[in-house]
């Protein structure tokens, strides 16, 4: 186990340079640069704000940061899983060249996505700061600090998803497609476009409890939006979830480390 972490560390320059390469490739020939990755959550937020404001007379000062922060985290989880599907295939030409810890390839995917997440979240913070300065909405910068443990858990959560998605894709080619369908359903079952209180009012509280996304997302959204530390129980739930998922991913990795090459 320790030897495995050491070998990941030994290859740190390698995967780190691949992460930088991915980001550079993505922004090359793109006038919008970093703004490009924000286009999706920003456009979605704008359209949802317009529609929901008209339909349900929602208060935009509350609603806009809620949607935007939710979409940012959601997009991160989605990207890590869907791109994670190809993590090992994409690295085939390295895996055939040298023996190395396979964990670094999902790591490459997740680190690239983390960069975009952090940009999106800083925009959320900027939005909240502007609203606070204008006096529309109370907010304290401390919330950012309170969200850090949640971000750490989210990172491990997404890395595990990428490992699991990548492994299954090597063995079964339709996993990417199935994941797309599954996540589309999960999107509507998650309190991203709507407040979680809405589900509770309609007796759908159980949906919140069984949805793993809610469990992790809460730890980032609550502190950011309300500047309060999430409850110990919420932390505990997320910690258990991430530990179980991380353990599954590690077991899977240990099993395929020597077998993956025969299935590429």
């Amino acid at each position, binding site marked *: 186990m320790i030897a495995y972490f050491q070998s990941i560390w030994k*290859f740190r320059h*390698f995967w780190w340079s691949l992460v930088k390469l991915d980001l550079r490739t993505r922004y090359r020939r793109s006038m919008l640069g970093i703004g490009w990755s924000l286009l999706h959550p920003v456009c979605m937020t704008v359209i949802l704000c317009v529609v929901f404001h008209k339909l349900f007379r929602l208060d935009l000062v509350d609603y806009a940061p809620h949607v935007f922060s939710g979409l940012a985290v959601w997009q991160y989880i989605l990207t890590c899983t869907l791109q994670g599907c190809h993590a090992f295939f994409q690295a085939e030409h390295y895996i055939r060249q*040298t023996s190395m810890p396979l964990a670094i390839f999902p790591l490459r995917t997740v680190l690239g996505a983390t960069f975009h997440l952090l940009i999106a979240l800083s925009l959320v913070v900027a939005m909240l700061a502007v609203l606070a300065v204008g006096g529309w909405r109370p907010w304290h910068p401390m919330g950012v600090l309170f969200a850090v443990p949640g971000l750490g858990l989210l990172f491990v959560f997404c890395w595990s998803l990428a490992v699991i998605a990548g492994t299954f894709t090597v063995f079964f080619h*339709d996993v990417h497609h199935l994941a797309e369908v599954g996540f589309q359903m999960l999107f509507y079952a998650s309190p991203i476009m709507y407040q979680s209180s809405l589900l509770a009012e309609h007796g759908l509280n159980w949906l919140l409890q069984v949805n793993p996304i809610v469990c992790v997302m809460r730890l980032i959204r609550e502190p950011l939006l309300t500047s309060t530390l999430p409850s110990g129980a919420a932390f505990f739930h997320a910690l258990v979830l991430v530990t179980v998922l991380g353990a599954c991913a590690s077991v899977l990795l240990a099993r395929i480390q020597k077998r993956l*090459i025969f299935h590429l």
Partner: protein
Amino acid sequence: MASIELDDVCLHFRVRQKRRVTLKEYLLHRLYRRSVNPIMEIRALDHIHLSLRDGDRVGIIGHNGAGKSTLLRLLAGVYPPTSGRRRVEGQISSLFDLTLGFEMESTGWDNISYRAYLQGETPRSIAAKRREIADFSELGEFLHMPVRYYSAGMLVRLAFAIATAFHPEILLIDEVLGVGDLAFQQKAKARLGQWINQARLLVVVSHDTDSLADMCTTGIWMEKGKVRQMGPMRSVIAAYTHSILQPARAA
């Protein structure tokens, strides 16, 4: 101190006769999967014993599909043995299929870093060698171009320059040197020749028996996944060529 030990190593590939299964198919047809899409087992390497030390320069010859490249990849740790034991001590640098280990969209300069990082080098150790690698490859301005535009000969120049720049203890080469032009082959041989003094371990797969006779001391003749003959390079080459020419003459 570099060494390679293979103790009764077998490597079997299990290949499905038809294309891969999808998850849907797997769940639906799980029961009769075997009859629909049977698994073929291929014995790529069959009970190989090998013991190589510092200073050994080994040439592997044999027919196509005899298991030469597979053996090399097993030595590199890419394929784990199905049974038996593989023990390798020393830093390995490998030069296999040329499309492997290059980021095609990146420039030659960037790829020097990626490949060197892959060998466990650090930014500092690379900085000291960049110039030398560039000079040895003689690619000049081409290094600023994405390697996608390189010819096979240019790729092998770059790959060889990187693989040998950091003085790995073990170097594994899979019949790629022949792609380079004559000047490069002379240069590559000269560099490998220097290694004799440095007591490095070299394993080369090639069909160019003349080069092998120059470069290598020990020869291995692979046939159908087994070592047919192992001994001094020149006598193994003689036996191998004899076996090929003999039936031709008889016919």
